[in-house]
């Protein structure tokens, strides 16, 4: 854990209110008091940031429920829906359309962000994300193929999540293979190249599916750009168990990821089973991204952006990064969804377009830094 001290120390210096603490650090040679002081202030700073983003999520959620409707839905209706339900039209719209959609946005945002964090932790590569691994496109292709050839196998109706998972797993393994992750030759550049190639290949196959089956033409946009329209309570029931399962597994693995970040050799020396950690973490990343894609199509860039922003805000400790990434991901997707209501009102813009508009410049900035 020693290597994390400089990082926290740096962060501390960056904060003007801590000026007198820097003074003490210069005066004293012994580093232990500084460590304890900076950890305490860091905890409180993290707590403030946590509370801030929870409040922000509440605020944007309220906006998300009320804006961009031709039916008059205001704060009053929202208040009445919660405390004084009378099954009027605006209240039914909140309960049947807007609330399930909002909750799906929150869950999907958390899924994608956590999936991205895991992808970056497992590969120790800042450019890794569910989209780079083609998990979204792979899942989308599997679902499109399911649309053509049917989803009944040996007389059993296969669940969409399973089909999406298999597709996502297929492309993730493909990218790992070409990116050199399986034979230990990987570099950020190689991973990105492999990701781009596999993604283009999958997009070509999706287009081929659409040419083969004209009736899929309606859905082509859906499989290429994700959308949060038309969600219902059933989607939430399907997603939530996976969210909880993966979050628990990931938190259980957090200590392992902290050690893995020091390098494979160090981690192994400290008793971490790197292979087991990678398989579990990678598996969770695929489940999270694939279940998100099965519900609302491929939504890019959330998994790439959020872990980096989270690192900037709470540091490198995975015990904090995991919940914080999920919170930030939820924030980003709810904001994007609110924008998707407004951009082309009264019609909707697919949310995948909005996240891409925000995410593409971010990706360029990031690759310039790396």
């Amino acid at each position, binding site marked *: 854990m020693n290597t994390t001290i400089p990082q926290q120390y740096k962060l501390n210096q960056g904060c003007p209110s801590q000026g007198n603490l820097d003074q003490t650090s210069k005066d004293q040679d012994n580093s232990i008091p500084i460590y304890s002081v900076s950890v305490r202030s860091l905890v409180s700073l993290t707590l403030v940031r946590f509370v801030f983003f929870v409040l922000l999520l509440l605020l944007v959620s309220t906006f998300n429920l009320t804006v961009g409707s031709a*039916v008059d839905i205001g704060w009053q209706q929202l208040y009445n829906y919660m405390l004084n339900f009378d099954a009027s039209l605006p209240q039914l719209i909140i309960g049947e359309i807007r609330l399930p959609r909002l909750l799906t946005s929150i869950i999907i945002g958390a899924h994608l962000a956590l999936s991205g964090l895991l992808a970056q932790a497992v590969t120790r590569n800042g450019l890794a994300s569910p989209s780079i691994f083609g998990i979204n496109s792979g899942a989308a292709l599997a679902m499109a193929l399911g649309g053509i050839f049917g989803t*009944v196998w040996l007389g059993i109706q296969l669940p969409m999540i399973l089909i999406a998972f298999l597709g996502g797993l297929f492309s993730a393994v493909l990218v790992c293979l070409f990116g050199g992750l399986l034979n230990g030759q990987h570099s950020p550049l190689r991973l990105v190249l492999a990701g781009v190639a596999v993604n283009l290949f999958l997009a070509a196959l999706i287009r081929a599916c659409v*040419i083969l089956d004209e009736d899929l033409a309606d859905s082509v946009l859906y499989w290429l750009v994700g959308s949060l329209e038309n969600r219902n309570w059933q989607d939430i029931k399907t997603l939530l168990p996976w969210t909880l399962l993966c979050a628990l597994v990931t938190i259980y693995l957090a200590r392992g990821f902290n050690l893995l970040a020091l390098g494979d050799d160090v981690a192994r020396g400290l008793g971490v089973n790197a292979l087991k950690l990678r398989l579990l973490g990678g598996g969770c990343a695929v489940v999270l991204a694939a279940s998100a894609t099965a519900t609302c199509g491929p939504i890019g860039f959330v998994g790439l952006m959020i872990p980096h922003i989270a690192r900037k805000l709470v540091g490198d400790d995975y015990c904090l990064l995991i919940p914080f990434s999920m919170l930030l991901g939820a924030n980003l997707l709810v904001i994007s969804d609110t924008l998707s209501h407004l951009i082309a009102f009264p019609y909707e813009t697919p949310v995948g377009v909005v996240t891409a508009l925000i995410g593409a410049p971010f990706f360029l900035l990031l690759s310039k830094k790396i």
Partner: protein
Amino acid sequence: MSKTVNLLMFFASAILSITASAVPRIINHEMGATPLDQTPSRIVVLEFSFLEALSLVGVTPVGVADDNRKTRVPARIRNKLNDWLSVGARKQPSLERIRALNPDLIIADWSRHQTIYDALNQIAPTLVFNSFKADYHEILTVAQRIGDAVGKGAAMQQRLAQHDLKMAAVRAQIANSSPVAVMLAVSWHKGFSAHTSVSFAGSILEQLGLSNVLQENSDVVTRKLTLEQIITLNPDALYLMNLEEESSATPSTLYDQWKKSPLWAYLKAVKNSRVFFVDRNIWARFRGVQTAEWVAEQTLEKLGL
């Protein structure tokens, strides 16, 4: 020697062509004007609209881009025609198969085939008309042009006059009842797209005096809608276009989901029990003169007028 033969051949063909059609006809279409000095006898069509137009004047094409499924052509039209050869999907017709048929006229769709116009033109004189993006009125114009091109202009004119009478009769019947605002839509398992007033079926209903809740001035034919938007638009009647070939094996559509919601009951169309199912093959895919008549008949029948 060979020169004399050539000269003789030239005169022979000139005389033949004059007897076949006295004046070379010039057909205006989306890519310019094409002179046709013979009555074409081996025609290839790349959209269903054009097949239907030929069927109105009793001409069978040698090749049709029918998505390799002849059953997509309604039996009522198929029975009037002889057999033809499939030349692939409308979206991706096979140039090889078209060439093998050795056609003397090709009729192609502007939005689907304008990019392969040169390749088609090398095989045979090619006319390009709007079908995919055409509204009802354009379909009528195109039918007349196709009639002219195959040398049956007068017959087509007569058939279109009959058509106008039929449509006027339906329009009169609808005008006698109270006005109805309609929505036309396709519901599938991940989305709900409504056809606007400029879509083929939408423009027929406009012509019949039924106004579409999605009035459109541009050429946007479909709009994806959410349940909230449908409730806001609140049509008096909802026509859901499904495919007859779709079996029960297809996943449940958004309509199946929504009809269980308490919000669905707020729709006027639901309150009046005016949610109807119609065949998408006729209402959206075929886009022809005769199909327009069937759409008009079905509209009346469903509304119970």
